[in-house]
Every structure is written in C-alpha cells, then in structure tokens.
C-alpha cells in the first residue's frame, strides 16, 4: 500500500533519510533502514576529505535549527568503504549524495560510486558550501545544466538533482536540471541561509555566521516549491523540509512529491520516526480510502 516508484526505482514506502543527517557511516544508515526508511541518502561527499567548519556548526531557532556543518566527509576513497557496508533489502534504496565544484569532479564521483549505489543525488544546493560548491551551482541555471549533464553522462544509475529554495525562481532551475537529464529532483535543501546572533556577547553563534535553516519552520516554503515545480517539470519530485509526522508527508504528496526525505525531526523524534510515520500514513490511507501513494500524488492541484 505504501509503495512508491521514483524514476523506475521501487521504494517500499515513500520515506527516506535526507542527506547530511546520520549519513556519515554505514552503521547509522543501516540503523535508519532497520527503522523503517525505504531509502537512505548518504552525507554528501567529495573527492578529497573535508573537515568542515569549526564549531559551533548548529544552533536552535524557532521551529527549527540552522547549521553550517560545512560538508565534512572523509573523501571518496574512504567513504566508498562505508557505502559498501550499507545493507539494503527488497525495495530499499541506497542513494549517494555527492558534491564538487566542477563537472569533472561530479563525473569522477559518479563513476567512482555508481556500482555501489542505486541512485545518486547531486548536492548543488548546500547553502553553506565553500567556494564553487553547493548553492553556487544550484543558484545558476547554466551551471546547474552543466553539472547535471556531466553527472548524467557519466552515470548508469538515476541522477537526482537536489535544489536550493534560495533563488528568485526555482522553476527555472528545475527546468535546467530536467533539460540536462536529471531523472528526479529533490526539493528543498535548507533555507536562507539564516543567522543567529547571541545578544549577550553580540556575536554570531555559528562559526560560519550563516547556516541553512531546517525543521518545521521551512515546511510551507518546501510545500510551495514542490507544488510549483510539479507544474514546471515532468520528472518525479522528492519532497523534503520540516517533515515530522504523517500529515506533513501527505501534504508533500498532495503538493506533488512521489517520495519524501526526513532529517531534522530525527533530533526530536529519534530514528523511530520512520516506522511511526509509516504506520500512521497507512492508517490515514485506509481511513480515506486511498489504495496507493500513486493516486495521492499532486491531488491538491485538482480544481474543485
């Protein structure tokens, strides 16, 4: 009943772990899979190791957090060993999240990792990446096109482009990614960035000063972006942003998402959030008479 399909890949339910959350090692990814997620996205990794920013890298804000972890990762050679230890069952999906600054870096990473994963998500949207990475790409339709094309050309698994909401027109970027051959889109990466200043010491809390906002606060923006992009592209959309219960998941599906990712709410709900939402979602569908996720997708687009 909960099954979904995203560009030909089967998921036993619509829930995935979002990139950057508990995704640094195989053990935690396996734990999340055992906890009911149908898919896991690894933490974004690059060619070379990266220690990320100095702490503080995360701070709470109203209805969410802002973070600038800084894409810390052990580099492709080390990380591939973690990825090979991830154990997926039937209709469970392993997705590698990769980042870089150039088409060559993306091609290299795709070629390096594609035999060990089911799908690859391109992080072209991190709002606190170093020069040339992350949102520096996803805020420019031409760069987006170049990077997605390079990744797609190198890949024999589906390519997902993860987009930033921090643009004037997300539809334009989505269209670029689709035109470049993206098989699916993930919407949205963290918002802003935002900032928290401690008033007792008159200083920004994060060492990077600015950090991407996530959590409940960003959900309305994510829902709107999914809704708008659904009308703009023909490729499937994975929704992410502020999901903490089945109602949020349904809202994303009605907006046009075929699957969703969950991240920040693990902070309050624990990894049990996956099993718990699956149960509630199934009850909701039974109550309302929905037989499949498929028939629920984009229902909020229908006229009265």
């Amino acid at each position: 009943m909960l099954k979904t399909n995203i560009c030909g890949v089967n998921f036993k339910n619509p829930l995935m772990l979002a990139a950057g959350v508990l995704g640094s090692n195989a053990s935690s990814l396996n734990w999340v899979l055992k906890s009911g997620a149908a898919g896991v996205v690894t933490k974004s990794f690059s060619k070379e190791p990266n220690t990320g920013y100095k702490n503080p890298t995360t701070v709470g804000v109203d209805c969410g957090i802002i973070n600038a972890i800084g894409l810390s990762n052990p580099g492709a050679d080390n990380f591939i060993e973690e990825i090979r230890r991830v154990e997926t069952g039937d209709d469970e999906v392993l997705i590698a999240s990769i980042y870089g600054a150039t088409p060559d870096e993306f091609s290299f990473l795709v070629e390096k990792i594609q035999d060990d994963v089911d799908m690859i998500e391109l992080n072209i949207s991190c709002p606190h990446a170093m020069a040339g990475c992350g949102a520096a790409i996803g805020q420019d339709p031409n760069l987006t096109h170049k990077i997605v094309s390079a990744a797609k050309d190198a890949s024999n698994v589906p390519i997902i482009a993860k987009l930033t909401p921090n643009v004037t027109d997300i539809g334009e970027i989505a269209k670029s990614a689709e035109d470049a051959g993206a098989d699916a889109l993930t919407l949205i990466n963290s918002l802003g960035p935002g900032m928290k200043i401690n008033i007792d010491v008159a200083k920004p809390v994060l060492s990077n000063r600015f950090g991407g906002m996530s959590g409940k606060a960003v959900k309305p923006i994510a829902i709107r972006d999914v809704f708008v992009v659904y009308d703009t592209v023909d490729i499937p959309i994975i929704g992410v942003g502020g999901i903490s219960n089945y109602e949020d998941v349904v809202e994303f599906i009605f907006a046009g998402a075929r699957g969703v990712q969950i991240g920040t709410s693990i902070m309050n709900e624990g990894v049990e959030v996956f099993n718990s939402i699956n149960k509630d979602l199934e009850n909701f569908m039974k109550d309302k008479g929905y037989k499949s996720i498929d028939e629920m997708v984009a229902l909020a687009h229908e006229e009265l």
Partner: protein
Amino acid sequence: MNDVPQIVKIKEIIDETPSIKTFVFDWDMDKYGTPNPGEFLMVWNFNNEKPMSISKINDNELAITVKNVGEFTNELHQLKVGDVLGIRGSYGNGFSYDLKNKKVLAIGGGVGMAPINSIATALANNGNDVDVISAAVNGDELLFVDSLKDIGVNVCPCTDDGSVGFKGFATNLAIELIKDTSYDIAFVCGPEIMMKGVFDILEDNEIPAEYSMERYMKCALGICGQCCVDNTGWRICVEGPVFSNDLLKEINEFGKYHRDASGIKH
C-alpha cells in the same frame, strides 16, 4: 531551549592540577533543566565549541573540569573569573544515578575523573558505598581525591609512577580491589585504552558497568551523524555518552578506532 548557547559567567576557577582546571558557573536549573551525572555540555568560548563532561552538579551551579591538551582547552585555561562562556545542554544519556544501598566501584583515569566525580558524589550522597579509583600519571595530576574523601567516599589514588597511592595503572588496581570486594556495579571514564582494559576485567568478573565514551562531535543534537559508532550506528551524543557493558559490547569500534572531523578512521 537547550539547543541555544546560554551565556554564563565563570564564578570560580579551581587549579586542580598543573594541567587541569575546574570552572564553576551558575546554571538556572528551572529554566534549562537539571543535568544528571554523566551528561555533557557543549562549551563555546566564542572561537570554538566542544563537548565537556559535567564534574559538579550543585544547586543552580555546575562545573566543568578541563585538561589543557590542545588549542581549545588551552584557550579555556586562559580564562579568568568573571569571563563568560556559552553553554548549551545538558545532552546525552548519563549514568544510573538513582541507585541505593549498592557497593559501587567508580574508576576515573586522568580528566576522566570529571564525570566520575559527579556520579560518585551523587551515589555517595544517596547512601551507596562507593570506592573510587582516581588514576593519574603522577600524584600532582590526581583529581578530586580530597573532596571525595570529605563526603565519605573511599578514594584509592593510583599513579603510573607510584608517587601517590597505588603504583601502576587503574586496571591493576581494579584487579586488586575486585579480589577483596564484591561490587554491584562499576562506573568508568578515562582514555579508551584504559576503559577497554577495565572492561575486559569487569566482564571477566561479571560486574555490570557503565562506561562514558567520547567521539568527535559537531551538533550534539543527534542529527549530524558525526559521532555515530560501528556497528550499531548509535549516536554518542544521544544514545551515549554512557553505555552499559551490555550495550558497549555491540559497539565494536570500542577500543579499536574512532573517526576524526572529516570522518576518517584512526
């Protein structure tokens, strides 16, 4: 919100040893919660932020005890009374502090005595019979020996060089104590190699125990994944830092390796 740093003023600095200082500050327990022994704080000195064990939990007052081992701790050691820090937390799963009438062995190696001090104090005040092994390289570096004695704890100092108390490692002294005494439970914190040694001894003797682990930490909120351990995936900042011996058995990187800021294993 305990996920936002609260600015506290250092009200007292105790020079515990040549390399270790204790920093005492007020903490509004009504507003930010009362930490339990074994929980930790994220300490921000406006340049960096690191997890620190709580060494003392008094009425609306906390202390951290810090060894000068690197850039961050060296910066902390430069602080004066009246200077401020940003503190968020407390975080994590602490020790079992609500025991009664137990025969307890608590073992702290070096600055690992910080959380051992808070759990030994709580348990002694709660009517348990507590033996503490306070281990250090030499007598000058021993921590909390007198203050724990003052509240009725049986403190057994232990130094690598034998300058004070038992000569040898904490593991050696533990073996001696276990011979004569039947302990209900043990609490352990120290360098991981020491904890691994103690773990093997306590397991052989079938003494249940709780261990306080340390891993590189970023968010402390249970989401960044930086402190997750093999093979369970558990987060040191949420499921830990304290694990019972039964759970610790499942952490197969314990005593073997850890990951650095980028995630590379060492």
